[in-house]
């Protein structure tokens, strides 16, 4: 019987771009003796150890939780944001790569995300979209008893499907137009579903859609690539809902309070 393979080797084509420089290039590296249990990022750790040992500057790439929830990791692998399969970069396992494969690794850069260094991009435009209205205004002080406002279980689950967004930006990186519609609509959709989000509902959608445009993201042309690359399976149905609310908000002008307006 053959021993199951314990290690593998790969060739990497990695995008390297010095800080403060808009030009970069692919550089090739070989990594050998990668344990099959290693994750993709652990393979990059091995590469960086090699580079540091030989006196070179390590490849800059970002990660933190390494379990698919913080949204920090952000690599385009062989042309796909987060690589093959609907998970984050940090959840990719080396056992799913072929021994001897050549792998191309690039940053998540698109129009609105600028490359900072090597594989690190600036995703702060996403924070600014939330800043423009992605919240419910509450102070820290006494609140109503939560069970005084029952919420149907399926409504909460729907809201959670949307607010499961980890803000990684894969949707933007995958979109041929560089649109942030899936990200934006997920936050709008989450809050629009819940009773607590109603008061600011239409003001929110107007402000967030405008912020998205101002940040230089492209518009949505229904390619649906975003949904296909989202590691949290967020559905484009939220984009449809966002558009509906946006139309309502523009017709009703500055009304922040939603459809039921006291006259």
């Amino acid at each position, binding site marked *: 019987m053959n021993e199951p393979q314990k290690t593998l080797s790969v060739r990497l084509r990695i995008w390297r771009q010095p800080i403060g420089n808009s030009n970069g290039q692919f550089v090739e590296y070989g990594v050998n003796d990668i344990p099959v249990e290693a994750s993709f990022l652990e393979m990059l750790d091995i590469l960086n150890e090699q580079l540091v040992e030989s006196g070179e500057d*390590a490849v800059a790439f970002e990660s933190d939780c390494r379990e698919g929830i913080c949204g920090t990791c952000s690599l385009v692998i062989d042309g796909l944001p987060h690589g093959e399969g609907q998970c984050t970069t940090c959840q990719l396992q080396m056992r799913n790569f072929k021994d001897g494969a050549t792998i191309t690794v690039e940053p998540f850069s698109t129009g609105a995300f600028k490359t900072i260094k090597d594989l690190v991009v600036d995703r702060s435009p996403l924070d600014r979209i939330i800043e423009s209205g992605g919240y419910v205004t509450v102070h820290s002080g006494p609140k109503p008893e939560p069970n005084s406002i029952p919420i149907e279980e399926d409504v909460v689950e729907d809201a959670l499907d949307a607010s499961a967004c980890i803000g990684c930006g894969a949707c933007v990186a995958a979109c041929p137009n560089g649109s942030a519609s899936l990200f934006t609509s997920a936050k709008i959709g989450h809050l629009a579903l819940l009773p607590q989000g109603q008061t600011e509902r239409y003001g929110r959608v107007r402000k967030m859609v405008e912020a998205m445009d101002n940040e230089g993201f492209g518009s949505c042309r229904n390619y649906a690539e975003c949904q296909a690359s989202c590691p949290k399976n967020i559905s484009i149905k939220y984009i449809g809902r966002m558009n509906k609310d946006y139309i309502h908000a523009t017709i009703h002008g500055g009304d922040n309070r939603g459809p039921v307006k006291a006259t």
Partner: protein
Amino acid sequence: MMDLDAKIPSGPLEDKWDSHLEHINLVGPRNRPTYDVIVVGTGLAGASAASSLAAQGYRVHVFIYHDSPRRAHSIAAQGGINACKNYRQDGDSVHRLFYDTQKGGDFRAREANVYRLAQTSTEIIDQCVAQGVPFAREYGGMLANRSFGGVLVERTFYCRGQTGQQLLLGAYQSLQKEVDQGRVILYPRSEMLDLVVVDGRARGIIYRDMLTGEIQSSAGEAVVLATGGYGAAYFNSTNAVNSNSTAIWRAHRRGAAFANPSFVQIHPTCIPVSGDHQSKLTLMSESLRNDGRVWVPRKKGETRSPADIPEKERYYYLEERYPTFGNLVPRDVASRAAKVACDDGYGVGSTGYSVYMDFRDAINRQGGDTIKSKYGNLFDMYEEITGESPYQQPFKIYPAVHYCMGGLWVDYNLQTTIPGLYAIGEANFSDHGANRLGASSLMQCLADGYFILPQTIGDGLQPLFRDKVGTDHPAFAQAIADVNGRINKVMSIQGSSTPLSIHKRLGKTLWNHCGMSRNAGNLQGAIDHIDQLTQEFWNNVHVTGSAKDMNQTLERAMRVADFLEVGRLMCRDALERDESCGCHFREEHQTEEGEVQRNDEKFAHAAVWEWRGEETAHRRNTEKIHFEHLQPATRSYK
């Protein structure tokens, strides 16, 4: 000796917090914008504190090493958050939560703080629901609960297996709103590397701009550290890979006392280590122990697959040893039991250092769909990492470093021993004694951030009206020079050990000798080894690239330098606490059944360590724990 006045208000336990609020100094709303408050960290503690302070009107400067506040390690918390709402009518109350937390912590926490935590817990749920946090609901639309280890009630609120994420997004959104209003100024990718103290008061911080490498400073009338725990000192842990101890350690070196550094929680249910390449250990939420049954084969060196092992040849060691709590014993107890089983040769998996957590019976009883709806994402996560499906075969799990009960010493106002410096969340030592119960960290972080600090900070700020120290004060220039000196030193060594390799070796030593089981000989050995590693670091570390650039190798090196010092202090603390309690299991002090044996006569205190300079040893001070409401009893979960 240090002055360790915890400033506990007098009066009955139940009334302390209310009467404290009635008597402390306040800053009026029109004066608040004249104060600059620095908050470091935007985990649950920092984001909730910063947004609450800004909403009150303070000018808040927020520093994080992440690119966005939403990425803080709190995002990874899975299982839930406790609150004694008593929605189940199963006997929960403020007193019960207080009692459970104190007992869970093996009677090593300050009663007044813990009681206040329990009192505040219910407000947290109200606050989060109002923000739009989608907590799980029952069919009737009411909030759902589950149960966690070490308690006999169902008081844990949750959002599937991503409670931390949803709570943090709530706090993050409130924070971003304040950024929009201009009351919060955000400094992302800015790592705090030192604290500035002027005339005994914290007056600002020194930070490195992680894009340009520039060392800069910021001044304020108060500095709040919400920088999380130091568990990543062990290298392999459930913490995020960038979690570190630098902020609290640098503050410690400037005079903030560090309490109970050796109290580190080892979580029983994590995916076991597979090899040296491993960069992090993944937690499998404690909530799984509601339905999963933990066992090992009764036969040493068993080779059959788990499905082929008949019922009577399975040793459900938690259920047998602790019939009342069964699989839901507290974490320290469950972890130690797993270690003992594996040390005795009953462990499974390729290394022999794993135990089974089995859902076979739960699936048979409740159906696969129910189990999927409860734990689906955890099952998927496990399968992604290991390639095995827990629907088909039991999880293989082993304990891993998870949480730090120890941290900066704080008084009742959450102020450290440096006036003007506060510590909240996991960064402080306040509420969990020698062991934390599941779902209690999120509770503590949010209690500190939304409700406690925003109401106590005014007490220290009010006397400082218009008393400002700017970054032009010489103490800032001096601190900048110190930091630059340290960085230049690290960059100039150009030896042959990578920072990562030193970190890994430090981690192994801590895990083996200052982990689940400790003894005097090993701890002394660990201290000696850490001294050698420290020597090696300062003589032979190799950092490539430039200090004036984004340089992740340098970032790691600076963190490892501090981990070495923290690690040493952890071992010393463990060595000098010559008793067992909670997570701190000293082999010399155990009952006949192998349970921890406390020594209340000699060690009913927090060990509070004082930095006395590079050349002088740390001094161990103590804060006595007064048992006024709960008499310490031997913890029994049998």
